[in-house]
């Protein structure tokens, strides 16, 4: 088991390294006029050139990449070109909010989608059709539409929740709950039905296994078969579905945070992209991929633990 974890960990680090190199080359091979953007319209050509030198834009790409990688191993990801803030600090300020949203959303998705998926798989019929219809609807509505509708109805019309986030560094739990309810709902709605549908197929696949029939032939009650055996057997597939959902939520927050003016990683990604703040864009990519790597590792470990073949050997 330890060897298994170590292998996955190494694979994750290698993936992170590859993504970092590709992203760096992609971003920095085209960045030309950043110094002018930073210095503004009134700055002289000389001061723009000085800024370009200060940022190392006149260095060869590969030497910049290697120095970035070296610094990254010390958790230094450079400084934002536009806010003068270390990338590490900027992201550290934003991360708790985004992670809170994504984790709450994924937990709720996990619970609700499992309930819906299992119900659909076991009852079939109307419940099944309802989940399928919901899944089609949810897939048809891009995240921004859901976000806009929630704001218009629950914030502007009904005034139950704030239209934009009220969260500051010292906000209490009540402010967090009030400010995050709509965003989390918007995030969830897109994922829930799709996840339910996938959990449904995973569950049905297990229900069709031979051993389920054998368990029934042994006189084991249906409820026990479903919850002790089938649910357990479908869990790895379910966890994989949720880990894919997690990745998609990390993308979904980009839209939702922008609509609700939430100071999270997603809105940071948008503003950094808009401004061309490449160190920040780079940092956001690395952080999100690192989060995904960690989540996938956790899922792998959980699946390994659930699978006797891996656990016992």
């Amino acid at each position, binding site marked *: 088991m330890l060897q298994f974890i170590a292998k996955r960990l190494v694979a994750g680090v290698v993936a992170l390294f590859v993504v970092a190199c590709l992203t760096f080359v992609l971003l920095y091979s085209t960045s030309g*006029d950043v110094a*002018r*953007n*930073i*210095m*503004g*319209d*009134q*700055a*002289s050509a000389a*001061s723009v050139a*000085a*800024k370009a030198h200060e940022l190392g834009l006149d260095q060869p790409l590969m030497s910049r990449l290697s120095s970035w990688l070296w610094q990254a191993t010390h958790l230094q990801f450079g400084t934002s070109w*536009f*806010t*003068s*803030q270390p990338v590490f600090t*900027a992201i550290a*300020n*934003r991360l708790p909010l985004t992670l809170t949203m994504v984790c709450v959303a994924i937990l709720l998705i996990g619970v609700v989608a499992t309930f819906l998926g299992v119900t659909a798989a076991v009852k079939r019929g109307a419940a099944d059709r309802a989940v399928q219809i919901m899944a089609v609807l949810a897939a048809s509505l891009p995240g921004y539409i859901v976000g806009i509708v929630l*704001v218009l109805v*629950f*914030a*502007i019309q009904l*005034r*139950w*929740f*704030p*239209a*934009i*986030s*009220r969260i*500051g*560094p*010292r*906000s*209490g739990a*009540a*402010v967090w*709950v*009030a400010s995050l*309810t709509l965003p989390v709902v918007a995030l969830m709605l897109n994922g829930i039905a799709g996840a339910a549908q996938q959990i449904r197929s995973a569950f049905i696949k297990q229900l069709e296994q031979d051993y389920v029939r054998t368990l029934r032939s042994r006189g084991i009650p249906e409820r026990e078969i479903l919850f002790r055996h089938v649910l357990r057997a479908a869990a790895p597939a379910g966890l994989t579905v949720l880990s894919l959902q997690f990745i998609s939520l990390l993308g979904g927050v980009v839209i939702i945070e*922008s*609509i609700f*003016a939430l*100071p999270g990683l997603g*809105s*940071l990604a948008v*503003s950094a992209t*808009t*401004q*061309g703040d490449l160190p920040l864009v780079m940092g956001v990519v690395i952080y999100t991929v690192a989060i995904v790597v960690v989540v996938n590792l956790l899922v792998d470990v959980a699946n390994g633990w659930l699978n006797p073949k891996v656990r016992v050997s």
Partner: protein
Amino acid sequence: MSAAAVAGLSACSGDAPAGGSSASKEVVLGILQEPKSWNPAIAHVGHLLQPYQFVYDSLLLRKSDGTLAPMLATSWKYTDDAQTVLELTLRTDVTFSDGAAFDATAAKANLDHFKVANGPQAAMLQNFESATAVDAKTLRIKLKIADPAFEYYLSQAAGLMGSPAAITGKDIDLMPVGSGPYIMVKDQSVKGSQYVFTPRKGYWNPSLQKFTMVTLKLLADLTARVNAVTTGQVDATLLDATTAQQANAAGLKELSWPVDWQGLLLFDRDGKVAPPLKDVRVRQAINYALNRDALLKNVAMGAGTVTSQVFGPESGSFLPELESRYAYDPAKAKQLLSDAGYASGFDLTLPLPPGIETLLNYVKQQLGDVGIRVNLVAVPIADYQSTLGKGTYAAAWFSLFQGPTWVACNQLIVPSTLYNPFKSTTPELKALLDATQAAGAQVGEKGKAVNTYVTENAWFAPFYRVNQIYFYDSKKLKVTPQVQMAVPTPYDYEPAS
């Protein structure tokens, strides 16, 4: 938990703005852009000056009518006829938030710092030669050449005074250290989200400390600002004509004043990338082809004034007769194009920044109607200014504030400015500019000749002066707009009660 319960909870938390409460004079302002750094030398104009003014005093104070008043300097005057030596008398009772005292040495250090720090407004001190601390309360500034805008600059970014020890330090990017009325509460301020300020104890001018707490909330998106101000989450913010109706319906008070002019800058007066533009008749044809009234009505819902000149009414060089110099006349435009040898039109590429597509689609349509085939090329907002400065495009749309005469000349007309990428000039124009720069108090009068020259030669194709439309909750606030400023300065807000 039901949604209603959550809402109730948040109402009890005291976090919501307590509308109209007289006890807590707190204000939340929605802002469009945030400072890149708190280094006062990095301060900008308009939206990017206001935040600095909460924490930094400037040498001179610009009042809402545009006149200059004492602030850190109690008096100032040019001591020579050539207007190149400016002597300021400074206050002696002022300290910075790190405890250091403000004096002439500190003021000199700030000006020197601004000059070398290469901030976005570094050009404000392009004519600054040196500063001398004559004594603790006397600062003498020497200019290379007369600069009619210099006193104005001392009320703007170039006049912001930070603690000399702090402004060269590493922390200044993230934490301001000034002598201003408020200090920033660092652990409640998050870049990209909000900045919180509280009054500074022992400030020399308590009359500028009108609030117990000021929060600046960054809301770059217009719809987010509408939602925030109509639901009371911010007390005041800048909107535009298209959203005014929504804010008025919510019972907010509207302020409206002209600041920017919008239009095309016809850069390529020498025909380097678009040969047709070399011909003044072609540039004039573009002006005649524009139906400015339709643009104003369709795009800005009529909230502004159509114009053919780039100098604003308060600039000093405004000429009423130039307002309608190029009245809409497509037949004349076609005639001029034909005279210039472009009877069958020509192709013109314009850069298109995001959010301006509505306006430029109309421009494309109107120019197309006289035979000028406009091709719009999307340019990301981050690259827009640099793209203009590189001379890639023969002409471009922009929205620029209408400063006093020499500020406007420096921004738009002199060969060294970014907005003159092909460095166009003529001997005639150079003479007019030199005369204006040296005119002292007559700067506005002399500038009128510059105005006439660039308008007659169609250096630009202005559309209109668009109104800034600012909304605030009049139950909580009283706000006065400041002329030529995109948003009111901190000194322009006060509690309603």
